[in-house]
Every structure is written in C-alpha cells, then in structure tokens.
C-alpha cells in the first residue's frame, strides 16, 4: 500500500511524501533551515511522521525545506518508504470458511460453562454465609443463656433483699399469718419524721 493512498487523521495538507516528490536536487546543498533545537533523532522521527501524514502544517514545511536542501535526508526518506513497502510481504491471513461458526459455538459453550460455574460458586457462597450466620447466632444465644443462668442467683438475691435486711427480725416470728395481720393494720408503716419522740418506735 503506497503511503500516498492513506488518509489518516492528519492535518497535513501536503499529504505524505508530497514534499519529497517536489524536492529539487541541488549541487552544494544549502544548510537546512530546520530549527537548531531539533535533534537528528527528532528530525528522523519527524520524517516518519511526515510519511504517515501526521505532521501539522509548520512541521511539514520544515521537513519539506530540509528535503529540498539535503540529499542525505532525501535518501533517508526513500529508505524509510521502501522498508515500509516491504511490509507488504508480510502475510495477510484469511480465516477458514467455518472459523466464524466454530468461534461463536466455542464462545457460547464457554460462556454457558462459566455461567454454571458462577451460579455454583454463588450457591456455595450463600451456604457458607448461612453457616456462618447460624454459628454466630448459636454463639450469641449460648452466651445469653449462660449469662442469664449465671446472673439468676444475683437477681434472686436482689429480689429478696428486703427480707434479707430484716432476716434477724423474721427469725423471731413464729406465725407468718400473725405478721401479715399486723401489716394489714399498718403497724409496719413508716412514722412521719416530725412525730413526737414519745410517739416513735418505742411506743412508750
């Protein structure tokens, strides 16, 4: 494929190689007007980009000026072009008649197998998660049960605290029903704080 047949994404209005074909051989070529800041490697990279139609207008003109003035530069362009043309010797491969069919079938089979494997993995993962949740729940319930069992004696003690505080008095009681009758008669009620001393506990 000739370079000039390409229409790449280029802003070079001259087209690739146009400068080379217009270049005039000159005896005692004048010095190139290329920028002094462009290294030889940059110049050659620009030459390749020029062949590829990738240079902007200013850079393309710079290359063309040098091509017109520098025979060695022109030879280099021709060598690049010929080496590029030799790439046409590389084989262009054509698929067999059934390649598309076998490809699509292969993809369908592999995709289905991967989908099955993925679903299997998802089910297994759900199973693992369920087992983990059950294990955690069992641990928590077990902890709560054991904790409740361990605290039961303390709670009973707390509930019986009023009795415990007066256990010395209750030990002297022979008849529980008699004590209950006294309670119904409000004999155990708290006395007001400003009651006269003779009316307090002693009941003299």
């Amino acid at each position: 494929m000739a370079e000039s047949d390409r229409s790449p994404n280029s802003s070079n209005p001259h087209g690739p190689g146009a400068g080379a074909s217009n270049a005039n051989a000159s005896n005692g070529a004048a010095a190139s007007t290329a920028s002094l800041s462009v290294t030889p490697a940059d110049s050659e990279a620009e030459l390749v980009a020029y062949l590829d139609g990738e240079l902007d207008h200013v850079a393309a003109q710079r290359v063309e000026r040098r091509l017109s003035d520098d025979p060695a530069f022109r030879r280099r362009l021709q060598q690049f072009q010929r080496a590029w043309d030799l790439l046409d010797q590389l084989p262009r491969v054509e698929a067999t008649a059934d390649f598309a069919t076998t490809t699509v079938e292969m993809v369908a089979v592999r995709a289905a197998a991967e989908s099955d494997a993925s679903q299997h993995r998802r089910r297994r993962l759900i199973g693992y998660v369920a087992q983990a949740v059950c294990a955690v729940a069992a641990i928590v319930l077990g902890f709560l049960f054991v904790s409740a069992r361990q605290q039961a004696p303390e709670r009973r003690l707390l509930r019986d605290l009023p009795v415990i505080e007066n256990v010395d008095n209750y030990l002297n009681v022979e008849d529980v029903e008699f004590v209950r009758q006294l309670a119904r008669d409000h004999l155990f009620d708290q006395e007001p704080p400003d009651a006269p001393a003779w009316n307090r506990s002693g009941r003299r």
Partner: protein
Amino acid sequence: MAVTDSSVDYEVLDPDVRLMLRVKEDDAAAFTELVTRYQNRLLTLLANLVSSREVAEDLTQDVFLRVYRSRKTYQPDAKFVTWLYRIASNVASNSVRSQVRRREIHLAPASSDETSPLSLEQLAKAASGALPTRRLDKSELSEIVRLAMESLNEQQRVALMLSKFEEMGYQDIADTMGVTVSAVKSLLWRARENLRTLLEPYIAEGARPTKE
C-alpha cells in the same frame, strides 16, 4: 495515556459500536456479524505478532471470547476498533510473554544448511555488508521481512502493525495501546529505523545473504 472522548457519540458515528450494543443485549446474530467482520483482520495482526497461524487462531478466538464476556459492561466511549484492538493487544502481549518464557527453556540449535531459515544474526550481518548476496524470491523476501519484524520489541511491532495493516492514525494507536501520541511517534520511528537498517541490503537489490 489513552484518550476517550466522552463528547463524541460513537453510537451514532460507529456502526460497529451499534452492533456491540446489540451484543450487550445478548443478540447472537450481532455477535456473529462482528466475528465475521473482524476475524481476518485480527488473524492477520495476531499471526504477524506471534509468527504462527495456529496460535493466532487460538488467540483470535480468545479475543472474541473476551469481547463476549465484557458485553454487559461495554461502554461506547471510543471507536469499537480501538476497544477491540486493545483487547487483542493484551491477548497478544500475554502470549508473546509466555512464548519468550518457553523459548528460554527450550533453545534449538542453529542450522548451517543454506536452505534453512535465516537467523536474525545473519540478517544483521547482511545489513552491515559482511555477507555476499544473491537475488531473492518472494517467499524468501517474506521470510526476511518476518525476521526483521521479530527484531522489534513487542510495542514497536504492535504499533507498526496497527499503522500498516489497520491504517490507524497516531491518536487511534495511542488509544489502543494506552500510551501518548508522542510515545507512538517514538515507537514508530524506532521500529521503522530498525527495519530500515536490517532491510537495507534487500531494499534495492532484493538480494539474500549467503551463509559463510
């Protein structure tokens, strides 16, 4: 760095993007159409990257399998060919790396027969003018060009193949390879400079170096 232009509506501009969007909806006919459109191009690219038609066929099918697997997450933020060749480039790269590892383990001795394939070393000697030459036929020239391509590193080869066979511009090559345009310019210059150097004895004369 790869550049995608989110302001460009590739769905409108690129018919292959529209096909891929149908594949995204599990349209088997659209997928078959994409395979048919790109099989030869991918085979050519991959065969010249890995130097084996059989391997290239496997890799091409691998590329299409990856296209299909990615269908649900496909986004039309670049040309379809750019996205496709990005996948192809990765597949080729993985294959080349594993080939290099295998070659390091199994080195074959060089043959001294004149009819046996040229080695890269002989190609380099010919380029230096150290070997006498004779005229070449087409298959020999093809072999020499293939050998010269093997002298390039993987990135140079990919850039060159995309430029030559796919006629991609520098920006598209940059998007495909995930590098800058400046890097593409450098890669192509180095690739073509290496080729120019190695193929120089054959450029004008079509000659093949005789083995010493």
